[in-house]
């Protein structure tokens, strides 16, 4: 039978999680610090269950911060200030370091917005705007348009790139976002088609087939690529218009 204080090393599972979650630049230091504090608790004859509980909670809390920081690093990037007596004003807080990760994130956001729009807001808005003669088909692209406008805002850091690079990235982002949107739309249509009370809904009373959609998809791709070119052009214009602004310290 084990002595209560016989275990003198931190739990392996927690060490493994810590190692997996932490970035290499401070992984060893952080794990070493926790090991050092764990050793202090061993010397203080703390019960191993209490020590392991403390270590586990520390790892979980640490990972919360680490993961949050990593998400910020991926989607926002580090803020590196100028080392001088002058501190530049913020030109743009967003600097996309991983366009693909950003695109996936953006696409998911777009799909979520789409679902929220359809599931919660559509009935209310259609009820109001319907008085002006619109219907839900006219409105289904609203979240996508909003997301596209946000996209232009996010793409500004790419302004320093060449037009071809800006076009490739912005067009790619549009296409991937549209793919998410398409999946969301298709899933929603399939979902509605299976509802027992969906008879009167002519537009959703059967799941659409891909062959029927191909011409529309082709046209959409062309439109999105054109949008990508517009975004690439706009971001280039913004670069030329931006001038560095600085404020003196003190």
């Amino acid at each position, binding site marked *: 039978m084990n002595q209560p204080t016989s275990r003198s*090393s931190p739990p392996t599972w927690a060490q493994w999680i810590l190692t997996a979650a*932490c*970035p290499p*630049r*401070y992984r*060893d*230091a*952080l*794990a*070493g*610090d*926790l*090991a*050092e*504090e764990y*050793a202090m608790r061993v010397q203080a004859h703390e019960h191993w269950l209490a020590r392991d509980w403390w270590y586990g909670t*520390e790892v979980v*809390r*640490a*990972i*919360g*911060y*680490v993961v*949050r*920081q990593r998400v910020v690093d991926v989607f926002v990037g*580090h*803020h*590196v*200030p*100028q*080392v001088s*007596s002058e*501190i*530049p*004003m*913020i*030109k743009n*807080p967003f600097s996309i370091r991983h366009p693909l990760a950003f695109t996936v994130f953006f696409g998911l956001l777009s799909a979520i917005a789409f679902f929220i729009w359809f599931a919660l807001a559509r009935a209310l808005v259609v009820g109001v705007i319907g008085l002006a003669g619109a219907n839900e088909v006219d409105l289904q692209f609203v979240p996508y348009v909003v997301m596209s406008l946000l996209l232009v805002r996010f793409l500004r850091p790419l302004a320093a790139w060449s037009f071809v690079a800006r076009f490739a990235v912005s067009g790619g982002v549009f296409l991937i976002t549209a793919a998410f949107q398409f999946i969301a739309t298709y899933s929603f249509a399939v979902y509605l088609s299976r509802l027992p009370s969906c008879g009167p809904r002519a537009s959703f009373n059967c799941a659409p087939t891909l062959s029927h959609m191909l011409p529309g998809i082709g046209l959409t791709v062309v439109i999105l690529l054109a949008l990508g070119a517009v975004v690439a052009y706009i971001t280039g214009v913004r670069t030329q218009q931006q001038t560095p602004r600085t*404020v003196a*310290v*003190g």
Partner: protein
Amino acid sequence: MSSRPPGEFEQAVLLALVRLGEQAYGVRIRAELETRLHRAVSIGAVYTTLDRLVAKGYVTTSLGEPTAERGGRAKKFFHLAAPGLAALNHARQTTQATWAIAPLPSRL
């Protein structure tokens, strides 16, 4: 590029580095912060903040010797750099200027 001054916790970490001098590493920084701030501080919060400060150029690092009690891992020491000192001064001036706007009334 950012002109954002260090936040409250970042300022606390920078000041802990000043106080601890050459002995500033994770365990001691956390202990110092918990003592001064009167609350529990996660080691993850300390390291992510220090990582941010290093990226900003406010803090530099150096490695110590590996020890057995740390599982053969080396200590990572953190040192305040000149931009960090400038940022602290700037933050203090901003705070003082803010509080100089008006004295607080003793009661409302």
